């Protein structure tokens, strides 16, 4: 066990130098690093949000909200399908529970109606094993037709919703321009936004949390606002409250225009009142529709609806052909700006709910780094001192191996660009404690072998050989716990698992190569007849 071939020594030396090179950038500022030649590694260890400060936001697509919204659109399609000539008489069309239902008046025409609605089920591409899978399932029971989402259909849609939401969020955040968050999908219907350096996530949440679906509707002025509060909306119209919830508007259900027709939106000031407003401009087709609408309805009020709230309901005073308009609705400069950003970036396809939020201010992060540094240095020093007291010169060798161990650990973490979190620092300190264990096992074994009458060199040799199995068994059991922790944990806990796992590998390496190599050099120099421990 004490013989090392030349190539082995070279390999060990190269690993150690590699670890040193990979760790080195952590001691320099990023400005200094830029001046380094390209062949040197320049990555620094990635600090977790708990150390550098920042916000972690976990969003989930609101399935119920999404389904309701989709069913509402489906109602429109069902209506037009049944009204197609020859018309099929129906009643009670609407969203009921989880689905859209409609009753066909004439029992003889149920089959025909079914055939028409079958056209709405949207077969999904790639049905499994020959059976076609549809987005919606159509069922019939005594003249009552129901369309509901199939599980596959909903999952498929959610995939698209999540992908599109990520796009929209990215555009919105880019518009803000302050932070560079990472936006990732998590699971089937979740989106994780991590924004380093953002200590107040409120602004971020304001920008992400709003669906920003804008639609333009004609106001039904047959019914006053006071009546609307008590009465039911007439067929084809719906009730929408305004921002303070004081007034309720009766607006036509079908939107004249939607936010997707917008080309641009900017915050600005009204020239007469000097209040903040949002100016918008439609694209070509939107402008054409807008011109038509304004020509036909001059003198009538129309409502600008944002996420089921009327933000403004001006009266159309003249024909507007240029396709641009203005929204004034008690804005502050900031809220006008936010709305403009949202309109430019586009609407989210569904409502997103915050499921989990964690944010750390930069002050606390800095404090955590400081105390982590002090604690690890102190812990390391105590262990080093203890080892020298217990094992003398062998202890010093173990300490050298420990130093190499920590160096390699940092080198690997830096190279893998793994995230270092506060529990991760605890993982390093624990590694320091446990790394020594490998050497303790070896040294105690050497002592035992010497007691049983072996020569010094024989005892050292046997000590390493016999301790190997024990050390492997002991570290593999810990590794199993660490791997599970990595697979299941999230955020800071995952960071802990990473450092623990890497630490176990570097520990076994440094005990069996570095400390063994140093001892073999020592043995060759001294030719000891007696053990120093």
């Amino acid at each position, binding site marked *: 066990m004490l013989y090392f071939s030349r190539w082995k020594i070279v390999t060990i030396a190269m690993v150690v130098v590699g670890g040193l090179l990979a760790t080195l950038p952590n001691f320099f500022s990023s400005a200094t690093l830029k001046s380094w030649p390209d062949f040197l590694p320049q990555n620094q260890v990635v600090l977790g949000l708990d150390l550098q400060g920042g916000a972690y936001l976990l969003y989930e697509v609101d399935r119920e909200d999404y389904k309701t919204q989709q069913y509402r659109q489906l109602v429109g399609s069902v209506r037009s399908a049944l009204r197609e000539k020859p018309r099929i008489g129906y009643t009670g069309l609407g969203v009921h529970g989880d689905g859209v239902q409609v009753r066909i008046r004439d029992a003889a025409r149920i089959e025909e109606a079914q055939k028409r609605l079958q056209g709405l089920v949207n077969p999904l591409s790639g049905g499994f094993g020959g059976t076609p899978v549809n987005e919606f399932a159509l069922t019939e029971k005594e003249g009552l037709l129901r369309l509901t989402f199939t599980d596959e259909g909903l999952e498929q849609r959610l995939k698209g919703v999540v992908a599109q939401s990520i796009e929209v969020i990215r555009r919105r955040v880019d518009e803000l321009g302050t932070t560079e968050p990472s936006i990732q999908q998590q699971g089937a219907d979740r989106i994780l936004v991590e924004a380093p350096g953002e200590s107040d996530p409120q602004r971020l949440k304001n920008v992400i949390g709003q669906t920003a679906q804008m639609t333009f509707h004609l106001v039904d002025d047959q019914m006053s606002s006071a009546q609307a509060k008590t009465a039911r909306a007439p067929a084809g119209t719906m009730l929408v409250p305004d921002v303070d919830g004081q007034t309720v508007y009766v607006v036509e259900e079908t939107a004249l225009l939607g936010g997707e027709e917008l080309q641009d939106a900017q915050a600005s000031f009204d020239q007469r009142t000097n209040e903040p407003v949002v100016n918008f401009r439609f694209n070509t087709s939107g402008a054409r529709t807008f011109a038509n609408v304004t020509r036909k309805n001059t003198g009538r009020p129309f409502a600008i609806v944002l996420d089921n709230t009327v933000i403004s309901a001006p009266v159309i005073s003249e024909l507007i052909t240029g396709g641009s308009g203005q929204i004034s609705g008690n804005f502050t400069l900031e809220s006008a700006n936010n709305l403009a950003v949202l309109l430019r970036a586009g609407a989210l396809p569904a409502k997103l709910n915050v499921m989990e939020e964690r944010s750390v201010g930069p002050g606390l992060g800095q404090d955590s780094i400081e105390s982590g540094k002090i604690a690890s240095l102190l812990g390391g020093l105590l262990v080093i001192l203890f080892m020298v007291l217990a094992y003398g010169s062998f202890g010093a060798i173990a300490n050298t191996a420990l130093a190499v161990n920590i160096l390699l650990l940092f080198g690997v973490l830096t190279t893998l660009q793994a995230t270092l979190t*506060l529990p991760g620092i605890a993982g390093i300190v624990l590694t320091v404690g446990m790394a020594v264990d490998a050497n*303790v*096992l070896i040294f105690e074994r050497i002592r035992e072998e010497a007691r049983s009458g072996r020569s010094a060199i024989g005892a050292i040799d046997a000590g390493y050989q016999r301790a190997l199995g024990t050390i492997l068994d002991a570290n593999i059991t810990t590794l199993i716990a660490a791997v599970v922790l990595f697979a299941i944990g999230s955020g800071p806990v995952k960071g802990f698992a990473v450092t623990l796992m890497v630490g176990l590998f570097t520990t076994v390496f440094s005990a069996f190569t570095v400390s063994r190599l140093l001892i073999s050099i020592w043995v060759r120099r001294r030719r000891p007849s007696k053990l120093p421990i």
Partner: protein
Amino acid sequence: MKLLRLVPEVTKIQFMRWRKISFPLSGAVAIASLALFFMVGLNFGIDFKGGTLLELRSMQGPANLAQVRTTLSGLKLGDVQVQEFGEPEEVLIRIESQEGHEQSSQVVVSKVREALGQNYEFRRTEVVGPRVSGELATKGFLAVAISLVMILFYIWFRFEWQFAAGAIITTFNDIVFTIGFFSLFQLDFSLSSIAAVLTIIGYSLNDTVVVYDRIRENLRRYKKMQLEELLDLSINETLSRTTMTSATTLLALLALYFFGGEVIQSFVLAMIVGVVVGTYSSIFLAAPLLILLGLRTSVFNSNRDDEPKKA
């Protein structure tokens, strides 16, 4: 130089005799821990219960806890705990999960920010919705269970079933004790506590495996020795290592406990407790359990001898 020794070079302590005390003692402590767990319960943090946690620092002078409490109770947020956190300037606020919608906890943060934002810096904000907290709890439990099962199989594969069973009982004892400790002192049980429990599992097994490894070796070497005597010998041989490793790990952990900052203190405390219990159990439980589980000295005899024999 006289070298430091925690235990004499050669010890002949008859540990197996102690099992008459250590078994009932551990059993009683385990039952007490379980009783505490079921009657008092763990002080689950927001990770598992849902709710809001805020760490604030006063901008001028020490924080006025009484005033913070009054302000918050005016907001009607249900159960609110306000406590000093580490330094007199710092306040930790815990607000229970709000009734109703998944989103209602979101409103809490903005309300508190509005009420206290002028005088306090918000250093940390954590909001966990009820659904996510349920998932985190399930995942945490799964993590512990899965790793125990996997380790069980590993030890079974490497040793004999008695060793695997002994290791699991020992580890289980350590976990139960740690849970009891958390219940008794009502320490905040959060996600990182699960990490602590898993580390304790790893550490305790590490210790146990080292002792078992030696027992296996001695079983092969001394085929005629009585089991009780053989177990005593094995523990005595590894005693020096067991204590040394515990000592170095504890030194590192103590440094972290006193200087590592308030945020990870309960996490480190759990590990300190775990290391102490783990050391105790690998000496006083793991080995004597093998007698109880009916390990026989002949188990490694016959043709299964794959290690080099040594006189």
